[in-house]
């Protein structure tokens, strides 16, 4: 949604959003901003407002994705200016309030709406002129950072749950047809057609069916699901219920990762509110459709992101994947047909039904419509989460939106798709971010985490890091993954310690191919990707390590030290 449209819709919702007050002040609070003291900024703001007798509705909202400029605070005057403040700490709050309420635009980071009422407004840019924000196409993030995630009325004021209402007025087949036409594909990584998956579950025989929302966001470097769930959990609940209706399920689950408890808390509270409003429970919107959702907190295992492992975990077993077929669509949770969709996929479903098909397919690439949220982290100037149309180039995302690598450093590679993805060198930066293109250069879309590496990162060290991760997270069930990754890690250890030989590179590659070809589940099949892509695109760095005993980034300390010792 464009910024103009957002402000228009905001105006329509003002009665709810201002709740009888003259001003609305929002503070972005989520896991990342909490680390910068967002809760303290919120508290301080509430205190100061009371002290000054300002008639304001102070609201806790989610993080708008601009993690680099946290803590973010916004002051909105009813029918007046809308100022955004960034990089805040509790002690800066009084200054900000003093300035705004004395009619000055000092300290303002950007404006969403200017009314010419504050002194110096014209010197401050609009938020849309800030590249990180302005170059995005915000859809599932449109209300994240705007609404109170735990106040269902605010979501409703923006048309929340209208999507569910509209879906329930159609037959399940019509609903699935719309999803098919939207060309929505799973946002969890594999990119399977969502409509097709829904058809399989709907057509599977059996009266009892389940829908599971996979919120086991385990890729290091990916936090878009957390951000969405913490900032607008209702959009996920709404998409969940639409999916349940379409496939004929009456019970749903959300499986949340152990390390992200705030996300589970927000989702649980949203579900309770939806129940109290009749969006979940018996006879939703007076139809015969009944549906309820339960949140399950994982006990922690990366492999739970794999759908059959996730199902095993909910059933109370060790999370070990099993061979497919049978796919969960025919034989899933408790042996019943089960639909497993990612958090972001379900959030897109609610967007699709709230805004309509035409709006949905207006952006995206030929084979993948809509947007995707990417998380920028690592050596990038503006880390955060940004939503862009599928097919946007890596360069746009990293340099235009993310601001590129820190000053004085050189871009080296971008790691996409977490431990299952690959490292992409500069030569491919103009390639489009979509499922096919990324696969063609040896990486994957994955969950959409992008970790940027510059000349201070050693590519061999990073590749080894991913192996320590995947070998520790292997469930240990199938031999190629359990033994193979261990063997590969041993070779990498040799290389970073300065004991590697050129033959080791050959061995490493051969192991990598075997593990990729013969592992049971996606964890093992994709775990060699970081090794294979770095061997392909950065072979000379490996060769320097084994032949010249040199690490250009000076990261592999043992090797560097050994090379400096006098030869015996």
């Amino acid at each position, binding site marked *: 949604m464009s910024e103009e449209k957002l402000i228009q819709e905001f105006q329509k919702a003002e009665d709810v959003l201002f709740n009888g007050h003259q001003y609305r002040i929002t503070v972005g609070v989520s*896991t*990342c901003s*909490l*680390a*910068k003291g967002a809760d303290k900024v919120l508290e301080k703001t509430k205190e100061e407002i009371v002290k000054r007798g300002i008639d304001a509705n102070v609201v806790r909202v989610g993080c708008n994705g601009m*993690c*680099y400029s*946290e803590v973010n605070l916004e002051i909105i005057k009813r029918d007046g200016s809308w100022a955004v403040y960034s990089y805040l700490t509790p002690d800066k709050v009084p200054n900000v309030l003093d300035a705004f309420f004395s009619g000055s635009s000092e300290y303002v980071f950007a404006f969403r709406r200017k009314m010419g009422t504050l002194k110096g407004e014209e010197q401050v840019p609009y938020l849309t002129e800030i590249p990180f924000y302005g170059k995005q196409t915000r859809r599932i993030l449109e209300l994240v950072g705007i609404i109170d995630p735990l106040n269902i009325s605010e979501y409703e004021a923006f048309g929340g749950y209208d999507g569910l209402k509209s879906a329930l007025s159609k037959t399940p087949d019509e609903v699935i047809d719309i999803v098919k036409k939207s060309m929505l594909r799973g946002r969890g990584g594999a990119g399977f057609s969502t409509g097709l998956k829904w058809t399989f579950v709907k057509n599977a025989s059996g009266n009892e069916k389940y829908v599971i929302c996979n919120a086991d*966001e*385990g*890729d*290091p*470097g*990916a*936090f878009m699901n*957390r*951000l969405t769930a913490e900032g607008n959990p209702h959009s996920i609940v709404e998409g969940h219920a639409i999916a349940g209706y379409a496939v004929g399920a009456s019970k749903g689950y959300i499986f949340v990762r*152990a*390390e*992200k408890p705030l996300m589970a808390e927000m989702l649980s509270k949203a579900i309770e509110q939806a129940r109290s409003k009749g969006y979940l429970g018996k006879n939703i919107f007076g139809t015969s459709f009944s549906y309820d959702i339960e949140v*399950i*907190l*994982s*006990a*922690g*295992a*990366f492999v739970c992101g794999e759908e059959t492992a996730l199902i095993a*975990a*909910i*059933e*109370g*077993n*060790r*999370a070990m994947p099993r061979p497919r077929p049978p796919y969960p669509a025919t034989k899933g949770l*408790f042996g019943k047909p089960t639909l497993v969709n990612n958090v972001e996929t379900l959030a897109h479903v609610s967007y699709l039904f709230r805004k309509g098909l035409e709006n949905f397919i207006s952006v995206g690439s030929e084979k993948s419509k809509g947007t995707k949220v990417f*998380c*920028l*982290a*690592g*050596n990038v100037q503006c*880390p*955060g989460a940004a939503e862009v149309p599928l097919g946007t180039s890596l360069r746009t995302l990293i340099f235009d939106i993310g601001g590129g690598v820190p000053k004085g450093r050189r871009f080296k590679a971008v*790691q996409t798709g*977490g*431990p299952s993805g690959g490292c992409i060198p500069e030569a491919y930066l103009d390639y489009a971010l979509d499922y096919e293109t990324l696969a063609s250069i040896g990486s994957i879309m994955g969950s959409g*985490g992008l*970790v940027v*590496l510059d000349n201070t*990162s050693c590519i061999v060290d*990073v590749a080894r*890091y*991913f192996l320590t*991760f995947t070998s520790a997270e292997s*469930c240990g069930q199938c031999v190629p993954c359990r033994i193979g990754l261990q063997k590969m890690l041993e070779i990498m250890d040799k290389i970073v310690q300065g004991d590697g030989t050129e033959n080791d590179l050959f061995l490493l590659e051969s192991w990598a191919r075997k593990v990729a070809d013969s592992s049971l589940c996606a964890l093992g099949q994709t775990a060699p990707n970081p090794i294979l892509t770095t061997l392909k695109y950065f072979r000379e760095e490996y060769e320097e390590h084994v032949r010249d005993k040199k690490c250009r980034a000076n990261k592999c300390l043992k090797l560097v030290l050994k090379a400096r010792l006098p030869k015996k």
Partner: protein
Amino acid sequence: MLTKEEIEGLIEKYGNKRSSLIRIMQEIQKKAGYLPKEDLAVLSQQINIPLSKIYGIATFYHQFRLKPFGKHVIQVCHGTACHVKGNDVLWDFLREKLKLRGSEDTTDDLLFTVQKARCFGACSMAPVIKIDNEIYGNMTKEKIEEILKKYS
């Protein structure tokens, strides 16, 4: 350790079925701080699942622990972004500071337990550590030293 009645209460709350097992174990750990062997034995009898299977679950998932935690749990994020930003230096520093040797993860006075954590999703603040429920971002050795003082 929980009483037999407490464990029975948990089974009643979540249902005497396999799919409740992990949740009951999570509750036991929440109350006792770890999974005491005696509690697992009682659970095994009451829910009718062999102790060996329960042990299998307890050792599979990261969250479960068979030994008591220290009073404060320090988790050092080992996600990609934190790795790139040098969390290994922090990890070594922290362990050295707390005089932890070999495979020890808890200080002798049971004040601190140090763990490696998978990504918290606060990557923009890397490197990140979490002490109990508090997340600290953009960490350095100096900051760790400062923060530890608050807890000891």
